[in-house]
């Protein structure tokens, strides 16, 4: 139960963006309430003990894209923020060989050269150019995009500044940027590389969470996006928060509370209350009404515009845009509690290859074939799997000697042809387990418990429409100026005082926090302008 009935600001949804947003608002001095429908905050970034002693990151499972400013602005370290390194990528091959990359440049060179001497050298060139592109677009990621439909001087100035910025880029970088934004992962990777295993590993970042194969236009954008993160200044590297992504959102909650925000769980919101085109508060599902002149939705655009408010109050172009916005749940998870470490025969008793990511995608063709099945409404017989043994990285995730293994799986389309997910969930998980068994003989004997998370589960539990992990697919017409809808890409809505800050807004998707932060800055600016 909220302590009071009136606040300056109410944030609907205690996912990571809602928490970030609430923390910034509270830091600004606003009386802020964050409402979460579930019994715990975190949204799709939670950690749960589903088997005694075993901590599962049910959904999101690693960090990189989180905007570094947020760590500083919200003083997260003092609340327990800690990112553990995951420096290795292990890519098993069908023939029992593998590709293992790690923290040493020259060892990586030698390892890749086992497969192709040419690729070994080109990888660093590719990554450097990609990093230059990332550096070029980072300012866009950390600022409010211009409103294309506005003729206000401020917006025109933003457009000019954007044009100047793009115009100032190195020509090779600008061209590469366009290739990423418009092309396929395969277009780019085929230019550089010849080895299937390396291309399979790199192309995986181009399809994560997306209804795309490596040869689909648009997978270049997804590929670039996944390089936009950093870990301690190194672009494109990932880490694991102490206690999982749920550990991270617990830290965010503490930070928000330290700034004075109030967080109430088990408090689903029925609707945003409006009067004369202005938001005046929210109505909880249990009938309690709370007043606030600022209401922020951290939910996805469908819920923000169609469930929390009456769509008849909204302009038709916005309704149409949100109606047509693509939500493409294609990812599922199967998380395992294991009795010991899996064994890859060629690695013997080594363990270092488990200190990071295991990428089951021996070639781009492997992924493309997996996508073929997804495209036609079925889950892949040989799925792409991004697995991590998180208890190797953070021993507190499982009892000593035991392990948890998070497996992100594609493709698992939300709409199944001629069946449904409640019927298929176990068969689907069996397919995943069989794939792991193929690469890690004896895997099945280690399984103590498994958690199956289908796109339908993601939708039901977290509220992400169709289980789209990005709260709106990463497609060019749904990014930047157009996220979630052209003209409504600056966190405001047509209802005065009603704002949006979920991953469906810029620069959302993934555990980024940028939407929560930028929305807060918009709210604070609007408030100051009104005073």
């Amino acid at each position: 139960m909220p302590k009071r009935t009136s606040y300056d600001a109410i944030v609907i949804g205690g996912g990571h963006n809602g928490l970030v947003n609430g923390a910034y608002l509270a830091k600004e001095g606003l009386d802020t309430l964050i409402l979460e429908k579930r019994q715990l905050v975190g949204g799709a970034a939670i950690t749960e003990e589903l088997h005694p002693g075993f901590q599962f990151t049910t959904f999101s499972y690693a960090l990189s894209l989180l905007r570094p400013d947020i760590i500083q602005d919200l003083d997260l370290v003092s609340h327990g923020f800690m990112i553990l390194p995951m420096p290795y990528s292990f890519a098993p091959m069908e023939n029992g060989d593998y590709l293992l990359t790690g923290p040493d440049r020259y060892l990586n060179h030698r390892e890749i050269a086992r497969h192709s001497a040419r690729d070994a050298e080109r990888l660093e060139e590719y990554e450097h150019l990609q990093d230059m592109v990332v550096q070029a677009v980072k300012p866009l990621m950390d600022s409010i995009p211009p409103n294309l439909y506005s003729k206000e001087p401020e917006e025109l100035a933003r457009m000019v500044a954007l044009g100047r910025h793009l115009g100032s880029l190195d020509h090779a970088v600008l061209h590469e940027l366009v290739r990423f934004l418009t092309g396929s992962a395969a277009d780019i990777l085929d230019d550089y590389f010849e080895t299937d295993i390396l291309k399979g590993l790199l192309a995986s970042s181009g399809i994560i969470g997306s209804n795309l194969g490596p040869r689909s236009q648009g997978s270049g954008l997804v590929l670039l996006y996944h390089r936009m993160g950093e870990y301690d200044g190194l672009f494109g590297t990932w880490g694991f928060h102490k206690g999982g992504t749920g550990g991270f959102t617990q830290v965010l909650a503490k930070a928000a509370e330290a700034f004075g925000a109030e967080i109430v769980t088990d408090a689903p919101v029925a609707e945003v209350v409006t009067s004369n085109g202005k938001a005046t508060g929210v109505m909880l599902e249990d009938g309690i009404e709370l007043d606030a002149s600022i209401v922020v939705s951290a939910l996805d655009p469908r819920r923000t515009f169609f469930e929390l408010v009456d769509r008849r109050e909204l302009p038709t172009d916005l309704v149409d845009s949100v109606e047509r916005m693509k939500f493409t749940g294609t990812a599922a998870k199967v998380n395992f509690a294991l009795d010991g470490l899996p064994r890859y025969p060629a690695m013997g008793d080594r363990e270092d290859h488990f200190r990071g990511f295991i990428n089951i995608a021996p070639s781009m063709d492997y992924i493309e074939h997996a996508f073929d099945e997804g495209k036609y409404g079925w889950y892949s017989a040989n799925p792409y799997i991004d697995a991590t043994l998180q208890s190797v990285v953070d021993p507190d995730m499982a009892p000593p000697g035991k392990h948890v293994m998070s497996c992100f799986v594609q493709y698992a389309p939300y709409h199944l042809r001629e069946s449904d997910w409640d019927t298929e969930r176990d068969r689907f998980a069996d397919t995943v387990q069989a794939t792991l068994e193929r690469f890690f003989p004896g895997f099945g004997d280690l399984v103590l418990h498994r958690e199956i998370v289908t796109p339908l589960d993601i939708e039901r539990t977290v509220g992400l429409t169709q289980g789209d992990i990005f709260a709106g697919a990463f497609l060019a017409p749904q990014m930047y100026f157009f996220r979630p809808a052209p003209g409504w890409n600056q966190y405001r809505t047509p209802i005065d005082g009603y704002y949006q800050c979920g991953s469906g807004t810029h620069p959302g998707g993934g555990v980024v926090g940028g939407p929560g932060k930028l929305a807060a800055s918009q709210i604070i600016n609007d408030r100051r302008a009104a005073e």
Partner: protein
Amino acid sequence: MLTTPFHERTSAANETGLWSHWAGHLVVTKYQIDEKVEYFALRNAAGVLDTSALFKYRIYGRDAERLLSGVLARDIRKCRPGRAQYTMWCDDRGFLIEDGVVLRTSSDEFLLTSAEPNLAYLESMIGGDQVAVENITDRYGILAVQGPASRTILSTLAPEVEDLRFFALTPAKIGDASVIISRTGYTGDLGYEIWADAADATDVWDAVTAAGAGRGLLPYGSLVMHMARIEAGLLLIDVDYETSRFAWIDEQRATPIELGYGWMFKRLDRDDRAFVGRGAIERELADGSSRFRLVGLDIDWRSYQRAHLDVGLPPIKDHVPVEWALMVYDDARRVVGHASSFLYSPLLQRHIAIARLSPALAAPGTRVRIEVTINNLNYLVDAATRRLPFFNPARKTA
């Protein structure tokens, strides 16, 4: 080069082939190719460090306490048997010779560790006292077991550590080996140090690493030791201060008060000891004649980031300590001191430094500017003074 009693094990665990020299001994620089793996093992779970290269002295006899209370600036009489003390010793002008940790194993026996040889110096102070000083450097191996899981891991071998208080020590058995365990360390975290007979060292290593298996324990090398000690705000000789013994000029010398250890002399009026440097320390306290203060610096991340972005570079976040002087300036670009230790702390997610500043600027929160090199040019980046240590979890003393 000499090897330590743990060498057989440290060399087997060393995956990098990198070694450093520490007081004539081979010690591992880093065990893992990515040192952040062992760094976060230390900060998130537990790490073990071979510190056997330290000089070790046994001071024993009826007048052992009398000798040490005359040599050491901090009052050793307050250190009861079964306790340890971080201590300093000065020359007669109050300048620091060295710092170290002393364990009091009984009323008339002490074990002292130091970074430099001190046998002749200590013996020269004996006079007519009934006390002997013995160099036991090679007799013992010391294994530091540090980090949040250190108590859980070590108590499976030696239940005594369960209740062992901060800076207390206890005799214990690890397997068949008789050891001394003290709750001390150089990481600023919960942690212990195990003194084992050199012949038992590898057995102790095996027992500790076996107990830590599955709990994330890893050995860490000198690189991570340096990172951790800066976060903990702990001094390093030849980096944060120079021993008065070999200084050429007084500017190189430092007093305990200047280094931030004035608290050792809070009750000097009720302390009747005659100890080396007492007169000078009293004068410094009375006159406020300290020339500088050692403080922490939090480097402003926005300013640091802007300085890089302005020249088209992403901000560099390098955790390898810079342990040479970086100049510190005031707003008028006057030199007001220097930083002796600087790094990006992956744990604290920011750049930090240990610096000497004019006493007038030492108050926490004072804004200064520190020089950093970007694209081969020096830039001044904003920083704020703060109290040391940077990292000080409650579990350290709890």
